[in-house]
Structure formats: structure tokens, C-alpha cells
């Protein structure tokens, strides 16, 4: 029974990963895959609509009359173009200038790379385009003919979704099969946890008391701390990044609150098991209670710090939009994410105490990979791609969109956040449950 379930889970996980890689990473030239995402399928271009400007058509191939001879391709609608496939004969394909016109009618020159693939020439264009204008020559007399052309829409978004979703599915499957196998134990843990809800609340309030013991201002520090940080950083950075001062303080504060929530929750949780050694050795308490309690403590701190945000919003004069009411949502997503990461870190740190030191270094790097003090716009696109792999990027942007910019979050924004939260929660549960029985020998 157990063996069978394990086998099924392994097969399911392999299937998920294979599907994810298949659809997510490999790019196909055939239309079969494209048809799955119909609205994003390859778009053939009717050559009669192509406009040739400044070419001499008297010979076999169109020959450029002057250095500005161009070819303009207009698409049915503005799409995120990934590449333009050209079939024909060309001289000097590498020295082309490419201009794209987006849906709003603004024309910009973009960098486009051309590669030859069998008979075809592939022009890689990463931009939203309604119209593509190509200047294929630098000198007169060059020739350029076209027998077929099509654009491939950018499929990267769809791909990364599929990849993320299948990885999450794999994690959920793996863990849920695990949980089914261990259901007796789970029921017992949950039952005792319900009995221990008072303990959790007691521990949280004890933590709060200890944190602010012997400080005159007490809990007020949760509000003052972010405010002071914000003042200092606003003074330094708002000029560097050309922000209006008010804009910067709000921008920074929202990012800081979210990031601080993560660092507090995870660093507190990391030592929670070791800190609870006295209890764990003496009574049976489900061990996940300890990281959970620390995450709740961090949540309370975070909610208090929100007062700072409210104050600054008033001072700066942020126009409240009804979407601001959605602010608990990103906090909830982040809480789940925190709990997952905390379970992993608490486990690792119980066995290897130096994880704590490594994590401190990691947090510094993590902070720079999250748009807290710098605006997202200054990132070059390759760096932005990397930053987007950082789950925190999505939570922070979500929180800002909702609170500061009054942007209604899309389904996609929600899905990404939920996927990251679930993924880390599942990994956390898995790791923690695998090792929790051994904790007692290492504390």
C-alpha cells in the first residue's frame, strides 16, 4: 500500500516535471504546440500588404535605390513579437536597422539579431509591435527579396507559467501523497495543535513582551523604526534616482515593510526549534508550532508597522483607491511563503548551526535583488528577468500596486504569488516532516 502510493507519487512527479520542461523550456517551430495556445500561434504575413519604400523592382530581385530603402510589415493587431521569420534572399542580413511601432503608434528603434536557419532567416525581436520597419541596407544597390514571412509571438510568458504551475503541481502531489501515507500522525498533530492554540498565542505575546522589555517606547518602535529608516534613505536616494521625494518615501516604505516581514519571520523561526529545546525534550508538542509562532510574531510586528505606512500616506497625500482594501492579500500570500521558508531554515539550522551565518549574507544579496530602494525601471531587461525569478519581487510589486498605485491586481499576479507561496510551503512541510523526529537528538 505504502510502496504503491510512493511509486505513483514518483511517477506523477516525473510526469509533471517532464511536462513542465517539455512545454516550458523547449521551443518548437512546428505549429502543434502553438495551437495549444491558439491566440498566440504563429501569424503568417500576407506579402501583398508589405510596403516597399525606395526599391527598384525591374530586376529579378528588388534592389535598393538609396540607403534609406525600407520594408514595412504591418500586423493585424499589436502582439508581443518574439521573432520574425523571413524566407527569401538577402545580401548582408546582419546590417539591418529595425524599427517597431507599438499599439500606441510610437516608433522606436530596437536591437534585433538575425540568424540563418536552413533557408529561413530568423530575426529576433523582443518587443510589442503592430508594425515592423526594416532597413536592410546601408548602401545602394543591395538586393532583398521576400517569398514568405511570419511572426512568432513571444511565448515566454506562457512557458514560464506552465513551468511554474507544473513544478508547484509536482510539489503539491509529492507532499499530499506523503500526507496521505502519514494521515494518522497528521490527525494527531492537528488535534494537539488545536489544543495548543492558547500556547501559540501565549508564546507570541511573551515574544512581544520580551522584545520590548526595558525599552521606554515599547511597541512604538515597530512604527518608528521604519519611519526613521525611510527618512534617512529618502534623504540619500531620492535625488540619486530622480524620484520626487514623496514618491520615493512611499515606494521605499512599502518595499521595506514587506522585506522586513520576510527577514524577521525567517530569522526568528530559524532558531525556534533550538530555542524550544526545553519544551521539545519534555513534552509532546507538534514541532511546527514553534516556527509558526515566530511567523505570527513577525506578522504582528508587520501589522503594527503598517501604521507607519498610513502616516506617510497621509503626509505625502497618496490618493486612496478602493483597491487599497486588498492589502491583506499580499500579506497573507507572503505569510504562507514565510512559513514555508521558515520550516526549511529551521530544519537546516537545527542540524547545521552555520546556516544562520550563511543566511545573513544571503539576506543582503536578496535585498539587492528586490526592488526596495531602486526603481524597477532602471534595471536592464536581462537583469529584470533575473529579478523576476525572485519571489519577493512579485509580493512587493503586488503590495505596492494595491496600496500606492491603485492598480487592480490581475489574475496572473495572483497566480504567481500563490504559486510561489504554495511551492515553498510544500517544500517546507516535506523537509520539516522528514526530519522532525531527529530534532531531539541535535538540540
Amino acid at each position, binding site marked *: 500500500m505504502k510502496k504503491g502510493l510512493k511509486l505513483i507519487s514518483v511517477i506523477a512527479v516525473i510526469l509533471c516535471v517532464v511536462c513542465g520542461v517539455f512545454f516550458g523550456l523547449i521551443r518548437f517551430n512546428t505549429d502543434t504546440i502553438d495551437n495549444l495556445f491558439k491566440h498566440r500561434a504563429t501569424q503568417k504575413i500576407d506579402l501583398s500588404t508589405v510596403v516597399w519604400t525606395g526599391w527598384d523592382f525591374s530586376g529579378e530581385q528588388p534592389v535598393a535605390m538609396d540607403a534609406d530603402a525600407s520594408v514595412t510589415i504591418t500586423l493585424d493587431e499589436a502582439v508581443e513579437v518574439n521573432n520574425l521569420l523571413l524566407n527569401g534572399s538577402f545580401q548582408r542580413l546582419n546590417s539591418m536597422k529595425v524599427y517597431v511601432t507599438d499599439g500606441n503608434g510610437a516608433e522606436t528603434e530596437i536591437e534585433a539579431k538575425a540568424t540563418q536557419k536552413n533557408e529561413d532567416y530568423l530575426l529576433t525581436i523582443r518587443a510589442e509591435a503592430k508594425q515592423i520597419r526594416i532597413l536592410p541596407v546601408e548602401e545602394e544597390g543591395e538586393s532583398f527579396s521576400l517569398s514568405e514571412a511570419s511572426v512568432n509571438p513571444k511565448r515566454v510568458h506562457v512557458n514560464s507559467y506552465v513551468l511554474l504551475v507544473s513544478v508547484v503541481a509536482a510539489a503539491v502531489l509529492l507532499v499530499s501523497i506523503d500526507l496521505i501515507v502519514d494521515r494518522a500522525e497528521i490527525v*494527531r498533530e492537528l488535534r*494537539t495543535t488545536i*489544543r*495548543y492554540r*492558547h*500556547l501559540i498565542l*501565549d*508564546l507570541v505575546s*511573551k515574544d512581544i513582551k520580551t522584545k520590548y522589555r526595558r525599552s521606554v517606547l515599547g511597541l512604538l518602535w515597530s512604527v518608528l523604526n521604519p519611519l526613521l529608516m525611510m527618512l534617512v534613505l529618502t534623504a540619500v536616494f531620492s535625488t540619486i534616482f530622480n524620484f520626487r521625494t514623496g514618491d520615493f518615501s512611499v515606494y521605499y516604505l512599502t518595499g521595506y515593510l514587506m522585506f522586513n516581514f520576510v527577514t524577521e519571520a525567517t530569522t526568528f523561526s530559524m532558531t525556534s526549534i533550538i530555542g524550544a529545546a*526545553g*519544551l*521539545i*525534550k*519534555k*513534552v*509532546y*508538542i507538534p514541532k511546527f508550532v514553534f516556527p509558526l509562532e515566530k511567523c505570527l510574531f513577525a506578522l504582528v510586528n508587520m501589522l503594527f508597522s503598517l501604521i507607519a505606512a498610513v502616516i506617510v500616506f497621509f503626509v505625502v497625500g497618496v490618493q486612496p483607491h478602493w483597491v487599497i482594501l486588498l492589502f491583506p492579500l499580499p500579506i497573507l500570500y507572503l505569510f504562507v511563503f514565510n512559513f514555508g521558508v521558515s520550516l526549511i531554515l529551521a530544519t537546516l539550522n537545527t*542540524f*547545521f*548551526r*552555520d*546556516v544562520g551565518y550563511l543566511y545573513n549574507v544571503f539576506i543582503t544579496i536578496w535585498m539587492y535583488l528586490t526592488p526596495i530602494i531602486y526603481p524597477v525601471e532602471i534595471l536592464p531587461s536581462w537583469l529584470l528577468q533575473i529579478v523576476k525569478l525572485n519571489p519577493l519581487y512579485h509580493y512587493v510589486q503586488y503590495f505596492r500596486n494595491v496600496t500606492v498605485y491603485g492598480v487592480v491586481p490581475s489574475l496572473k499576479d495572483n497566480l504567481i504569488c500563490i504559486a510561489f507561496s504554495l511551492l515553498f510551503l510544500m517544500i517546507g512541510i516535506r523537509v520539516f516532516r522528514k526530519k522532525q*523526529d531527529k530534532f*531531539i*537528538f*541535535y538540540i
Partner: protein
Amino acid sequence: MKEQLAVDIEHVTMRFNMPKEKIDNIKEYFIKLLKRQIRYEEFTALSDVSLQVKSGEVVGIIGLNGSGKSTLLKIISGILKPCEGSVRTHGTISPLIELGAGFDYELTTKENIFLNGAVLGFDHAFLKEKYDEILDFAELRDFENVAIKNFSSGMVARLGFAIATLVKPDILIVDEILSVGDFLFQQKCEKRISEMMGGGTTVLIVSHSIDQIERLCNRVIWLEHGKTQMIGETRAVCEQYKQTGRS
């Protein structure tokens, strides 16, 4: 129909891996792993122990020091996980294995009652209600606002016992804790345990006092080096146990 088992221990084996040196950082771990130098000294604290306890029974566990009694109780209460075999329990458990789990020695009696109570799963309202009863039972009314670091070990044990036995559990697990208090308090504790037994609570008790075991238990299991030496009627097992010391 089979009678309801309160505790069902089946072929439980517990081994402790004792690494020869303590490794707690990654570098050392990997170096040792590469050199294949992680050596464990395996120690079998319990081997293939089985015991079925019916609801309402009082079972004594006896054996010399280090024979695995406390380990067995910890496995029953869920603090330790057995390496092999399984333990099933039915109902709520009050483990009196180490009293005063969660006591903060810097805090006062009053604060510790609430702290330890929460650790045992009681809520505030309930503890408030029982507050006087606890103080009276532990006879610590004069020390209500004294930090327990200033207590004698007997006084700490009393407080722990008073809180742990507030409610009548389905299964009570007692490990030698009665030995710390003075004889008056011991009598009081025994009385409380007897009351619980009268109320149908299943009791597992470890004690080095054969007298006590003979007085309280229906059945006794005798462990020796982690193995079941004998299991059965209180009188018969205790007689045998006493013999070993003499020969």
C-alpha cells in the same frame, strides 16, 4: 468483542545513534562524509518491546538504571519516535515525565502556572478558575510572587505536579516524579493518582520503590537492558525482581 486498548505497544525498538564526536557545522560534515568518517556508535535502548494496556489498568514498569524505562514512556507520550514498531494510544495523555516543562526560572510562581498550563494545553480562563486550587495543592500560597529559581527542587516538583494533574486524563504517565517530594506530599500525590484510577484513568508508572508498585499496580513489566525480562501479575514479577538483587 475485544476490550478497548488504551495503549498498544507493538515490537518497539529504539536505537540511539551516538556520533563519536559532535558534528554541527556543514564543513566538518562534508569533510567527514568524504572521508567516510562519520561513525556512529549504535546503542539499543529498547529492543522488541510489546505491551498492551487495557483501559483502566494500572501498569508498573520496573528495572535497573538505564534499562530503558524512561525511554519507553517518552515513546508512549510521543516525545520520541521509535525506530521500529508502533505505538497507538487512545485518549488524552498527561505525561508526568519531567515536571514543569516550559518553566521559566526567572518568572514567578503565578506566571509559571499560566506558562506551564499553556504548554500542557490549558487555556487562560480555565487556569484562572483553577488558580487557587493549584496553589493550595502545591502548598505554595506564600510563594505566589517569588521567582521559582529560589525554590527547592521539591517545591518545583510540587508545582509541576499540581498543574499537570489538574484535569483527569485518559492516560496518565508517571516517571519517578513522586520521589522528590517529602513523605506528606508523596501521600497526597498518591491519593490524587488513586482518585484518577478510581475514575477509570489508565496509568503507567515507573518507580524504584517496589512498595509503591506493589501498592498501586495490577500488572508489571520488568525491563532489563532494553528487553522485556518479565511481564505479568504484580506480585510474581516483583518477587522475581527482588531475587536478582540478592543472587
